[in-house]
C-alpha cells in the first residue's frame, strides 16, 4: 500500500540574522550583518498510511508548523526526502494542491469583507470543480457544519469558532485525500474547541480521510486522533498510539479550586497539591486512581468552592515526562 505521507531524514534550517550588542552594534549592523543557522527540523522520519488520524504535537517552537509547511509544499527542505501521495510537495505543488486540504489556525483563506459563500464559490474555480458537483458538496458541508445561518454574514462579523467552521468547509469542498490542520483550535474557547474537534473527528471517521493535526493542546489529540507523533526541538521524540500515550503520560489532570475557606486539605490516592495560595489550591490528579467526579465530590464535602477548573497538563510537562522516562530506561 502506498503511504499517504513518507518522510525520511527531513531537515530544515533557517538562516537567522543576529543583532550585535552594545552602542556600536546597531551601527555596525547597518553595514554588515551576522547570521547564524537554526535547525528547525533535524533527521525527522515517519510514515503515515491512508486513513490514519495523526496528531503531530510538541511544545512551541518544536518544528510542527515547519514540518506541515514542508509537507504541503510551502517550504523547501534543506535535507531529506518527502513523498506526499507519491508526490514531492515543493516540486509538484500544483498536482498536490488538488489532493490536499489545509487549515492554518493563524491564517485564513476566507475573504474578510465577504460572506464565506463567496469564498466557497471561488474555491470551486480554484479546484476546477464542476458546478453541479460543487453545489452538491457545498450543500452537504453547509448542513454538516451548521453554517446555514452564517452564509449571508461577512466573515468579519463571525466569531472565531464560526470562522473556523467555515475554514474547515473551505478546505474540504474539493474532497482532499489528506487534510493538514495546523493549530485549528488556537484561540478558541472551550465550547468552540469541543465543536471543532467533534466536527473534524466525525468527518474524518465518515470519509476515512487522512488527518495530520498539529497542536500543542493535548485535548485535541485525545479527541480527534488515534496516533500521536511527539517532536521536540525538531526531532522525533515519540511515535505511538494515543491510547498508549494516555496510559503512559496524559492520565493526569490539573484541577484548580478557589474556595471561601482559606485552605483546602485533601488526602486522596493519586492527588497531590502542586501549588497553594490563600483561598486557592492547585492539584495534580492521577485519574486512574481518583476520578475527577470523586475529586469534585470530596472538594464539595470539605469547602465552599467559588471556582473550579479542570485542565489537561501542559504539553511542556508531557514532553518533560517523556524525557524523564527515556532517561530512566536502561
Amino acid at each position, binding site marked *: 500500500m502506498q503511504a499517504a505521507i513518507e518522510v525520511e531524514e527531513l531537515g530544515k534550517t*533557517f538562516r537567522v540574522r543576529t543583532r550585535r550588542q552594545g552602542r556600536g552594534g546597531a551601527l555596525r549592523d547597518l553595514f554588515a550583518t551576522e547570521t547564524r543557522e537554526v535547525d528547525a527540523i533535524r533527521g525527522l522520519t515517519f510514515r503515515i498510511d491512508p486513513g490514519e488520524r495523526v496528531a503531530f504535537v510538541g511544545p512551541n517552537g518544536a518544528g510542527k*508548523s*515547519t514540518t506541515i*509547511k514542508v509537507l*504541503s*509544499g*510551502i*517550504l*523547501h527542505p534543506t535535507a531529506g526526502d518527502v513523498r506526499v501521495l507519491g508526490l514531492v510537495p515543493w516540486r509538484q*505543488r*500544483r*498536482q*498536490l*494542491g*488538488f489532493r*490536499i486540504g*489545509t487549515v*492554518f489556525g*493563524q*491564517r*485564513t*483563506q*476566507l*475573504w*474578510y*469583507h*465577504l460572506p464565506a459563500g*463567496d*469564498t466557497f*464559490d*471561488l474555491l470551486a*474555480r*480554484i*479546484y*476546477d470543480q464542476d458546478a453541479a458537483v460543487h453545489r452538491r458538496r457545498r450543500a452537504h458541508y453547509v448542513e454538516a457544519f451548521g453554517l446555514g445561518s452564517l452564509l449571508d454574514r*461577512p466573515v*468579519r462579523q463571525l466569531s472565531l469558532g464560526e470562522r473556523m467552521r467555515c475554514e474547515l468547509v473551505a478546505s474540504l469542498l474539493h474532497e482532499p485525500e489528506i487534510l*493538514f490542520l495546523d493549530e485549528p483550535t488556537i484561540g478558541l474557547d472551550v465550547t468552540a474547541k469541543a465543536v471543532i474537534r467533534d466536527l473534524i473527528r466525525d468527518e474524518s471517521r465518515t470519509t476515512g480521510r487522512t488527518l495530520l493535526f498539529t497542536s500543542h493542546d493535548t485535548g485535541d489529540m485525545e479527541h480527534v486522533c488515534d496516533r500521536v507523533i511527539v517532536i521536540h526541538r525538531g526531532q522525533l521524540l515519540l511515535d505511538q498510539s494515543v491510547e498508549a500515550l494516555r496510559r503512559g503520560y496524559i492520565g493526569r489532570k490539573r484541577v484548580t479550586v478557589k474556595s471561601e475557606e482559606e485552605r483546602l486539605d485533601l488526602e486522596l490516592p493519586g492527588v497531590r497539591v502542586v501549588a497553594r495560595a490563600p483561598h486557592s489550591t492547585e492539584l495534580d490528579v492521577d485519574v486512574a486512581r481518583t476520578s475527577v467526579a470523586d475529586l469534585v465530590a470530596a472538594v464539595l464535602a470539605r469547602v465552599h468552592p467559588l471556582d473550579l477548573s479542570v485542565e489537561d497538563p501542559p504539553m511542556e510537562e508531557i514532553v518533560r515526562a517523556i524525557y524523564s522516562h527515556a532517561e530512566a530506561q536502561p
Partner: protein
Amino acid sequence: MTVQRLRCDLAFVRALAAVNLRATLALRGAFWLALVGMMLNNLLYFAMWWIFFDRFEEVRGWRFEDMCVLYGVVGSGYGLAVALTGGVRELARRIVDGDLDPYLTQPKNALIHAVGSKGFASGWGDVASGTLLIGVSGVVGPFELPLVALAIALSASVFLATGIVIQSMAFWLGRIETLARTIWEFLITFSLYPPTIFAGALRVVLFTLVPAGFIGFLPSSLVRDFSWLSLLAAAAGLLAYALLATVVFRAGLRRYESGNRFGIRA
C-alpha cells in the same frame, strides 16, 4: 499546457477578479470616499500642468493635449493595476510576514492569486480621472476607444510586472515595504514627465532599468499616433518585464520562510 487547463485557469482569473471587485465594493462608503478623493487629488495635481502649458504652449513639441493623454493613460494604467491586482502593493509585506501560505497550497498560480486577491478603491478614482483627461484631450474619437483601452491595459500590465519585481526583492532583502513604495512612486513620477525632455542615455534608461517609457510614452503614443511598430515595441517591453517578474518571484519562492503571524484577508 493543455487547452482544458488554460480554460480552467482563465475561469479562475475571471472568478478571482469578480470576488476581488465584490470585496472592494463591500464597504460602499469607503469605496466612494476613496474614489472621489483620488479623482480630486489627481485633477488638482494635473492643474499644475494646465497652468504650465497655459504659459508655455509646448515643450519640445509636447503640447497640453499630449500631456492629457499621457497623464490619462499612466493614471488609468496605475489605477487599473491597483484596483484589480492591488495585492502587488502588499507583496513585500506578505512575503516577509509569511502570508503567501494559502496561495502556495492551492493548485493555481500563487503569484496571480496573491496579486489578484486585493483591490484598492482609490484605483477606480485613478481610472476615472485618467479617462476623463483622455476625454478632454480632444484627440480621441469613438474609433480610438479600443486603442485607449489597449494603451491602458499595456500600461497597467507593465506597472504590475514592475511592481512584482520590486516587491519580490523582499525575498532577499527582508522588510522593504517603504523602499518598494518609494521606488514605485518614483516610477510613476518619471512616467508622467513629457518624454521629449529626456535624451541620450537617459532615454535608454527609460526603456530598461526604469520602464517609464513602456508605462507612459509608448502606450500613450498608440492613442495619439498609432503605429504597428510602437505596438510591437510596447508588447515586447511588456513581455520582457512579465518574464522578469515571473523569474524573480519564482527564484524568490525558494527563499520563502513563511511565518506564524495572525492574518486576515481583507
